[in-house]
């Protein structure tokens, strides 16, 4: 994309009409991009959250192998730049898929779905960061909880899911909300592997209209809006999961 020269008209209303939903406006395209951004971030949660918990459990395991595995996983995916992780997963999966297909006798171009690649990459990153949050939450949990479970004769499974996990979740929520916000911002990187998210749509709009200042400003505001809405949602969930404490304090 070339850098553009000064826009001719500097009237704000002129620019606002660029956002209209009618033909010639970019409103619909940007909204579609925003939808991709949000759905990509949401799609990372079903894999990222449980995987993070599993990594945290592995890091606390008494056996050496799971511990080493967990440390490696979280060091690698927390240490790599998200952009590099994304490119490695994207090209890596592509090359691997091509090799496998070639071995099976299929010759020809194979393109991996960018959404899928991005989803895998960001899920891994999210899992690595959230595993640290889960670990910290485990440390605040009193040992007595576990002992009480076995004293009551609860199975390990029930003890974990019904006693430990609800308490862990409550403690981990603020940290997870931070991770969610950085995930939301990191998704802007997928525009580099040409998945048409909010950032990519903005790039397209800029290359057509030559109004970079306006459109990138709008994109920033879009991400700010997502952050603000997520903040509200997390505040609600946190209030709800702490509701048993409020009565005690009052």
């Amino acid at each position: 994309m070339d850098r553009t020269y000064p826009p001719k008209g500097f009237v704000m209303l002129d620019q606002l009409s660029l956002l209209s939903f009618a033909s010639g406006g970019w409103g619909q395209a940007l909204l579609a991009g925003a939808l991709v951004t949000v759905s990509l971030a949401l799609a990372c949660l079903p894999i990222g959250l449980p995987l993070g918990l599993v990594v945290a459990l592995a890091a606390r395991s008494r056996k050496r192998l799971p511990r080493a595995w967990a440390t490696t996983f979280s060091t690698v995916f927390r240490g790599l730049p998200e952009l590099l992780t994304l490119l490695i997963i994207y090209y890596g999966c592509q090359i691997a898929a091509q090799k496998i297909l070639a071995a099976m006798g299929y010759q020809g171009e194979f393109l991996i779905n960018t959404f899928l690649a991005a989803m895998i990459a960001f899920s891994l990153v999210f899992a690595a960061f959230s595993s640290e949050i889960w670990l910290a939450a485990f440390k605040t949990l009193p040992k007595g909880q576990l002992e009480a479970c076995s004293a009551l004769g609860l199975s390990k499974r029930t003890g974990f899911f019904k006693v430990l996990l609800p308490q862990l979740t409550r403690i981990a929520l603020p940290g997870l909300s931070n991770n969610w916000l950085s995930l939301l911002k990191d998704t802007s990187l997928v525009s580099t592997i040409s998945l048409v998210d909010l950032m990519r749509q903005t790039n397209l709009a800029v290359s057509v209209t030559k109004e970079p200042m306006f459109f990138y400003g709008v994109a920033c505001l879009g991400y700010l809006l997502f952050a603000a809405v997520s903040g509200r949602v997390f505040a609600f969930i946190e209030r709800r999961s702490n509701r048993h404490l409020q009565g005690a304090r009052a």
Partner: protein
Amino acid sequence: MSFEQLLALVLDPDLLDRYGPRFLDGLLVTAKLVAISFSLGAVLGLLLALARMSRSLLLQRMAAGYVYFFRGSPLLAQLFLLYYGLGSLKGFWQDVGLWWFFREAWFCTLLAFTLNTAAYQAEIFRGSLMAVAPGQHEAARALNLKRSTTFFKVILPQSLLVAIGPLGNELILMIKASAIASLVTIYDLMGVTKLAFSRSFDFQIYLWAAVLYLLIVELVRRLLKHLEARLGRHLN
């Protein structure tokens, strides 16, 4: 498969010969980028933290708005906003005599990274300044120390001790985020990697970059841990 063949899969000598020196250059660019923007960001961040804690409501609001904007939107969008957005106002910058600055991707990237990290560091400094016990302020006043002396000799050293952990995390995040610079034609470590990959189509290039980034991050983490232990040695 012999050892040489295995080695060629992850560290091809020909490829290393051709792109090794470039990787070193890229490493240097990344280091410069992070070092300059992080230190400038620290100064700006400290000022912002002071503004947020000042008595003037206007200063407070402005600093809070700044921090909210730069922490709430992606660095990529901010970089594009500065590089393409401000860069498009060529006539204006020529009139002001700042075109040499906004013409260069390097300066725009430095500016974007500085502004971004300043917002994060402002929050770190604010938290650490508030962590200093109020008795320290009162004691300094009782001793009739000047306000500047109180700040630089009493408050700041104590708060830095609290801040160094989070600042280290921010430094590591900056090192990782600096990979974004490659998207505006800067040949940092990531930029060199992409260039080498686009020419050779050899996947091992990405693995080299991954190892290099991991090494840097791990090295910085160890150094910071050491530094933190040394600065806090009077506490143990």
